[in-house]
């Protein structure tokens, strides 16, 4: 077997007395979609923030693409190929969809101490940005302000911005959050399409999405990984059913 792309060993993070991530071991193989599920407050978003470099871990190691991530800032990790999306839609509302994605491209096209040439008509940025918008199905919304897009479209834009950084791995924090059935359907089809092209850590609440796209699933409860396995194994795991799935089914 090859080396995992992302390897997390004994990761820990507490806020005061609350342990949000508790001695967590976790890995993502190249090309794999590894989903993390768990009830509200299980520490999923904390986990993503730690991997993305937005929260300092108390202890434990994160290795990505063979490199220790300790002390690396969020922008540095982005440049190494880690791209994240946010649970709460986090697009630049006053910019057009095209400008949103262009910014991502710009972030990875050398420094931005360029003071003169107009950015919004710079084809070095807008051409690849338009292509990515086409890929995620937002091609005809390029000139709409992100704040005026429908919720589902903003979620797609969010992912387009992550894709524009040409990542090795995507950290998707609940891409279907707040979506209706139809929008979730579209997102699921989209995730399936990206399967194999990108390695992914997928945080998700929607079980249908998890069980249809994930290669492996880890169940997080109070910051602890209580089980890891194929979707089939997780579905049949008694402990998981008691801790989590039982509530839903």
């Amino acid at each position, binding site marked *: 077997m090859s080396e995992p792309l992302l390897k997390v060993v004994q990761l820990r993070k507490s806020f005061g007395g609350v342990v949000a991530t508790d001695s967590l071991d976790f890995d993502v193989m190249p090309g794999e979609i590894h989903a993390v599920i768990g009830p509200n407050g299980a520490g999923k978003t904390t986990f993503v923030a730690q991997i*993305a470099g*937005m929260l300092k871990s108390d202890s434990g190691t994160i290795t990505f693409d063979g490199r220790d991530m300790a002390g690396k*800032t*969020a*922008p*540095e990790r*982005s*440049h190494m190929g880690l*791209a*994240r999306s*946010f649970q709460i839609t*986090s*697009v*630049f*509302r*006053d*910019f*057009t969809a095209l*400008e949103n994605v*262009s*910014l*991502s491209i*710009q*972030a*990875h096209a050398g420094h*931005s*101490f*360029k*003071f*003169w*040439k*107009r*950015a*919004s008509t*710079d084809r070095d*940025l807008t051409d690849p940005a338009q292509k990515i918008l086409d890929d995620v199905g937002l091609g005809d919304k390029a*000139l709409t*302000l992100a704040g005026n897009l429908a919720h589902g479209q903003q979620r797609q834009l969010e992912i387009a*911005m*992550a894709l*524009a*950084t040409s990542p090795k791995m995507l950290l998707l924090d609940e891409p279907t959050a707040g979506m209706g059935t139809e929008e979730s359907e579209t997102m699921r089809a989209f995730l399936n399409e990206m399967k194999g092209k990108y390695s992914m850590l997928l945080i998700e609440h929607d079980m249908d999405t998890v069980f249809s796209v994930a290669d492996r699933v880890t169940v997080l409860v109070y910051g602890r990984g209580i089980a890891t396995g194929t979707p089939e194994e997780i579905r049949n795991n008694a402990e998981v059913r008691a801790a989590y799935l039982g509530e839903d089914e």
Partner: protein
Amino acid sequence: MLSKLKLSILIGSFLILAALPMITEAIDEPFYIDLMARVMIFSIAAMSLDFILGYGAMISFGHALYLGLGTYAVGIMAHYEVTNGWLQLLVCISGTAFIAFILGLISLRTSGIYFIMITFALAQMFYFLGISLEAYGGDDGLPIDTRSEFFSFFDLNDAWNMYYLILGTMTVTAIVLWKIINSRFGMVVRGSHSNDARMQAIGFPTMKYRLAAFVIAGVVCGLAGFLLGNLTEFLTPEYMHWFRSGELMIMVMVGGMGTLFGPLFGAFAYLMVEDFLANFTEYWQFYFGPMLIILVLFAKQGLWGMLPGKEDMSDE
């Protein structure tokens, strides 16, 4: 993009300003040249504040510091009989850049209300430093005997030359800042205003860019101070006082935050209203306050934002 209306207003205003010296001479009211020169200097300062406040969400409550530093650069050098304008300009630019860099490093570690308070406190420190510098007049200030000397054929003691130097500086500043706002650099500054965590996630070390914007704003405001020192022929710590910083913020708000050109007119409106009301009463602020409240309540985008056609932020 600017709407046609806004572009016409800008060009129209420029033409009026360019013709003003001729007009004032024709009607024999030379006083207006000095008044407008003063207005334009504050326009430059207000634009530089809007550059970080309106576009970068860096609400500096100590921006007048750089206005004061500019006048000190001219004044102190003139005091030691260094009147070469180029040399003064070099000292002014590098000095304000250096101080803005250091103060930016400190204050940009904070945000929101803390940023407001720390920029306020740092500027006040310089104000009190100015007061304590007895060699340069302390709180009385110091007359500047000689205006900057650039070219032998361009004597700043001539009111017209002074006026056109200020008009030219304002015009160039407006164009350059507008280019910067729409450049890649400007996109980063505006993006971190809107969502700094997101900017970092897509790979921008935003602190560097915000610091650079802070320094640019400081230097531009320092240039305004350079001109102010020359125009008033006086240096005083009073220009660094927080009250002046507050005035600059009011000019930005009146003109329209995040519109760049709005503050040009904000400075004009503020100083004109001040000048007008002060004719009637010493307590002119008493009347100005309610006017400001009404403007802020009913026109959040300020005077410039009341014009039809939205150009800022989006390019539709």
